[in-house]
């Protein structure tokens, strides 16, 4: 008996060995570089970010008025754009859920609304220039459209475009998971459509709305391409991260800004998950 089991053990290695190649790659190309990044920001890296353990880079970054402005603008753009996206996404996913139930088409709508997820941010920035650049397509309609792409409202619209598919996907799954009989029952009990939306649909969607919002905000915060294309307008933090490296290879400064940016994104992500789960527990226990 004993030799037999030994042979079997030899032939089938423990299951975790299957994960080893992937874990090695993740360790080498994701975890370790991030550690180097943090090290650089603390002056622990190799040249030119090797000044010794210090928080000076963070102090410098936070003391800089332009960085503080970028930080605030980044938080504002990501927050407002994602909020606006959530507001317009709710009716869309409710409509899609209804279509799915009726088994009626919707494939082209589905494909069209998912398409922007494969478009890099730079193209979305370029769209803004085509429509609302100084000589944009919409400029002849109203002079306010000319150059709008480089203003805060223009940037917000671009980031709504960017966030839309990232919000619609998860929210759609949540809406599809709502039993239709709940809203039907509420209607037969005498509630108007608006009342059903306010008292049944939205409360039950709230956990998904919060979690999706957090995730989308994290992605929008890090979205570099859009603002890179529109770089002559408002400055966002990712732009500063890149600039610190492209102009004069200031590795420590760039790393510090990158860590700050990552911290904001992680905060949005964790906040969205935690809050979403908390609300979820309160909504349906």
């Amino acid at each position, binding site marked *: 008996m004993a030799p037999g089991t030994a042979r079997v053990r030899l032939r089938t290695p423990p299951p975790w060995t299957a994960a080893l190649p992937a874990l090695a790659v993740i360790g080498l190309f994701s975890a370790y570089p991030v550690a180097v990044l943090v090290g650089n920001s603390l002056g622990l890296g190799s040249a030119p970010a090797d000044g010794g353990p210090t928080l000076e880079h963070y102090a410098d970054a936070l003391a800089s008025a332009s960085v503080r402005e970028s930080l605030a603008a980044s938080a504002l753009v990501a927050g407002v754009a994602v909020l606006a996206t959530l507001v317009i996404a709710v009716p869309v996913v409710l409509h899609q859920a209804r279509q799915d139930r009726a088994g009626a088409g919707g494939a082209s709508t589905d494909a069209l609304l998912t398409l922007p997820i494969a478009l890099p941010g730079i193209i979305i920035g370029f769209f803004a220039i085509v429509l609302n650049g100084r000589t944009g397509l919409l400029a002849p309609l109203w002079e306010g459209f000319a150059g709008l792409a480089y203003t805060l409202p223009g940037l917000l619209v671009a980031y709504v475009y960017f966030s839309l598919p990232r919000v619609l996907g998860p929210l759609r799954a949540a809406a599809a998971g709502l*039993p239709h*009989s*709940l809203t*039907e*029952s*509420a*209607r*037969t*009990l*005498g*509630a*108007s459509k608006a*009342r059903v939306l306010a*008292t*049944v649909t939205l*409360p*039950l969607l709230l956990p998904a709305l919060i979690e999706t919002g957090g995730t989308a905000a994290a992605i929008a915060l890090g979205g570099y391409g859009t603002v890179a294309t529109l770089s002559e307008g408002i400055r966002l933090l990712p732009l500063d991260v890149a600039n610190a490296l492209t102009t004069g290879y200031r590795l420590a400064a760039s790393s510090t800004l990158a860590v700050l940016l990552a911290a904001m994104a992680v905060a949005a992500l964790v906040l969205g998950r935690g809050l979403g789960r908390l609300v979820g527990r309160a*909504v*349906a*226990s």
Partner: protein
Amino acid sequence: MTDLREPETGAPGLTVSDLTIRYGDTEAVRGVSVQVRPDETVAVVGPSGCGKSSTLRAVAGLTPVAGGAIGLGGRDITHLDPARRGVGLVPQDYAVFPHMSVAGNIAYGLRARRLPADRRRRRVAEMLELTRLTELAGRRPGQLSGGQRQRVALARALAVEPDVLLLDEPLAALDPQLRGGLRRELSAMLSSSGCATLIVTHDQREALSLGTRIALMREGTLVQFGTPRELWEDPADAFVADFLAGAVLLEAERSPDGAAVLDGRWRIPAEDLGTGPTGHGRTRLLLRDDSLTVTDRDDGAAVTARVVHAEFVGDAVRLTVDAHGHVFGVRVPPDARIGRSVSLAVVPGRATLLVPAP
């Protein structure tokens, strides 16, 4: 003639007249008429896909009506918004709001109707008592059993004092072992609520025990509508007899000394037969699985049938037999000797000859 076809929506209770429902090109319901008087429970029963759920959803206003009319409490509600119909719906999955307490669920319709808080609280307390949920008033639905959730949905629907209560497969979501008890409990609660009730079910036992009248549907049409006893004793056709009682209905010819069935190959003496009146025009013989027994007689009063299948069910053996192309079930004592074919005769008094009234 025109007067008869005119939809009668003025009567109290629920009146469904000549209802037609279409989904795309298919007609799910064709010309169905059903009345539910106040204080009465009508069970709509039929195999799946017969249009019974569509009928219920049309009454609730959740499915558009292609033709016909629906009246409730003297009002024409055919095209009324579901929120203004005054129906109490208990869906198959109960649809208890997961984010509200039991009391919050029951109060939902009262809040939507903007009932003053004190009257609302009183009504909720009444409903909690009726459905014996008072102790669970503060619980969330996630902490309730299936039966308790059903009672919450029932209380929520009854709280708004609907003109008709609509129950969609009320027991289907529950454990089969619990259904018997919960069926009796539901029946008691329905009769104490005193509300016109429409129940949709695919289970003939549920229909027989819960309905004061039964509407039996098949392929979108109403086959028979009457009291359980009427459907049991005088089924409109072989489908009703089979679906409701597992019985067969054979064409028969009456003669002074008895009845001839199976094209005269089987003559049953008059003294063995019970007779009943039928409202369905033709003379037919109604056989249930306890109507026949195995016999040694080999005269014209017995029929020889081929045994298709024999199944031991404890106190009896249930045979499926084929007699001249008619397949039906027969229960015989467990000690009966069964060959490839059996000779069957009527147990005196157990088979009914349905005779049209003169």
